[in-house]
């Protein structure tokens, strides 16, 4: 959490700081909500967590010394989400991130295009991914973040963003083109 510093003095900011916050940070509320929504997979919980994250961002705002305000805010949102998950759904965080990369499944672009055209199905497939895969995809594909921004937000080294995305995309393809895990195990 190197990018976040403790606000000095009291939690109460003055009107000038408020105006600066509204100008720099508040425009990214949609991005904050969207990241929370995909990390927590629930609109209701993410509304609460995004609210908490915005207030935390406001209190930390004196520690923001310019730069990429969106990445700064999303870093706080992500941390708030993980704290919430640890407390409320610890099992979800137990997936290993560094799993072996399996050989590419033979998927045709056409199959994928058909599967991907169904918004529900695409959303569900994304939700089946472990949070650490899900977040890099959401940041890259839905928020259009650069590798540098993704590295700053998720605290993974910039050199590994590319391979994290490679793994995440592979997982999503598998989720989209294969039947859900429960059904598959029932067949055995």
């Amino acid at each position, binding site marked *: 959490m190197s990018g976040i510093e403790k606000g000095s003095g009291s939690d109460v900011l003055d009107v000038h700081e408020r105006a600066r916050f509204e100008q720099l940070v508040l425009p990214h509320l949609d991005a904050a909500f969207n990241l929370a929504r*995909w990390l927590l997979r629930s609109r209701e919980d993410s509304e609460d967590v995004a609210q908490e994250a915005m207030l935390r961002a406001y209190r930390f705002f004196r520690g923001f010394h310019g730069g990429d305000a969106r990445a700064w805010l999303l870093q706080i949102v992500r941390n708030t989400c993980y704290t919430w998950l640890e407390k409320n759904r610890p099992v979800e965080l137990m997936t290993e991130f560094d799993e072996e990369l399996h050989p590419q499944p033979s998927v045709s672009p056409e199959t994928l295009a058909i599967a991907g055209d169904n918004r529900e199905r695409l959303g569900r497939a994304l939700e089946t991914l472990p949070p650490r895969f899900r977040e890099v995809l959401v940041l890259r594909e839905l928020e259009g973040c650069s590798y540098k921004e993704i590295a700053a937000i998720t605290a993974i080294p910039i050199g590994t963003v590319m391979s994290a995305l490679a793994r995440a995309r592979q997982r999503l*393809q598998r989720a989209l083109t294969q039947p859900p895990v429960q059904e598959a195990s029932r067949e055995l």
Partner: protein
Amino acid sequence: MSCDFTRTALHGYLDGELDASRSAEFERHLEDCRDCAKALEVEESLRSALQRSSLCERAPASLRKKVRADLDAATAAPVAHRIPAWRWVAVAASILLVASISWYAWPRSGSGTANGVAPPPFTAAELIDAHIRSLQPGHLTDVASTDQHTVKPWFNGKLDFAPPVKDYADDGFSLIGGRLDVLGGRNVAVLVYARRKHFINVFVLPTKEPDTPIHPPGLRQGYQWLHWRHQGMEYCAVSDVSVADLHELAQLIYQ
């Protein structure tokens, strides 16, 4: 069945994050490697599915309201008469600092900069104001079309110059329209591109100054801009996308 490239470089290439030499290297590889060509096609199809899917969710109005209430509670009421004198000194110092930074970031005087490049005929403040104004409902485009052959002729007769208009949808920057704007007291053409959820305004006006490379980015109020001159036109691209994205579009236009 997958070569080493599929695992990493392919994704950097897809995301436009490889430097020029690695990108060229991958393109050469792509000509010989069927697996990679196919994998790239699959990845592109997945990406466009994700981007078309409207999976992005906007903050509900209720959240916006709650956040504002939180901010109100955590903001001190202004008490002007109690501000000690030293704070005014601090305020004056920061104004001076900001003024001097803006001066360096955007020189405006007739003498030009140290390297002899004439400054643009408008200020950073005018530019960002125009950008923000365009984002207000109904202000973005006068002619809304993704077809460059519709947007280009639309400018005919409205300006005393013909701005170059090109769609870069294949590179992830779709042309969504054009409009007229006023910048530094003169009429300019604006081309509007969409990059995912974000808009990029490219202001175009004629100039007699010589070509310049794409200047280092400027930043103001959370928006970034890139400025350059090419073949008698002055360009300024403004957006809240990442500098890398903005630079990619600038390079496409520059070519």
